[in-house]
């Protein structure tokens, strides 16, 4: 079991010789997750505004959302200087985390921008 639970912030986990659990600084991991969350949320909002201005409706808008999320993932991996394991414990965190959370913000700002630009 390579997972760990987020306990109090300043403690380092001690590794037991039996299980060989990898040791992480939980506080720094939380900080990195916060950075990813902020980045993804902001990019979802900007992607929504972009989809609204371009006049996408229906399926094309969601295609744009996945494109914006993919670009954000690549940007985050580049920010981590391609050595993901120095900053996170698994690839899934930097690629998939916050994906669905941003979808709601995206649709909201997509609707806003589309209404402002195309309907009023």
């Amino acid at each position, binding site marked *: 079991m390579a997972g760990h639970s987020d306990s109090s912030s300043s403690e380092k986990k001690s590794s037991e010789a039996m299980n060989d659990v990898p040791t992480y*600084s939980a506080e720094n991991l939380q900080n*990195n997750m916060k950075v990813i969350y902020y980045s993804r949320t902001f990019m979802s909002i*900007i992607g929504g505004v972009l989809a609204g201005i371009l006049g996408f409706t229906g399926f094309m808008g969601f295609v744009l959302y996945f494109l914006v999320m993919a670009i954000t993932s690549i940007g985050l991996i580049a920010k981590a200087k391609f050595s993901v394991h120095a900053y996170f414990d698994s690839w899934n965190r930097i690629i998939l985390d916050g994906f669905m959370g941003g979808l709601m913000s995206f649709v909201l700002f997509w609707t806003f921008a589309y209404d402002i630009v195309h309907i009023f």
Partner: protein
Amino acid sequence: MGLGFIIGVFGVLILSHAAYSTIQYRGLLKIMEEEFSGPPMNVVLELLLGFVFCIWAALTVPGKFLSIHPDSEENRIVSLSANLDFMIFNHRAKAFPLEIDMKLKH
């Protein structure tokens, strides 16, 4: 963080200018009674530029990544929280004479 923030604001301003241009373009199309198929090419370029600025701001403003290895260079100092449990008062400073004046002053 200051520069990234300014670039982010700039990107948002460029996007809103592009939105305004698209609104005017739609007004023009309504007069000429044509269908809206997409914004004009310069608006698309402006959107792309604003998008690039916003990507740059989104990656730099939230803060740096911190290394999670406990034995890396930047994690050398472990700090405990300033917790009352760890504060001790029974140390050798009690050998110093008291400095406070014990008399009440009027």
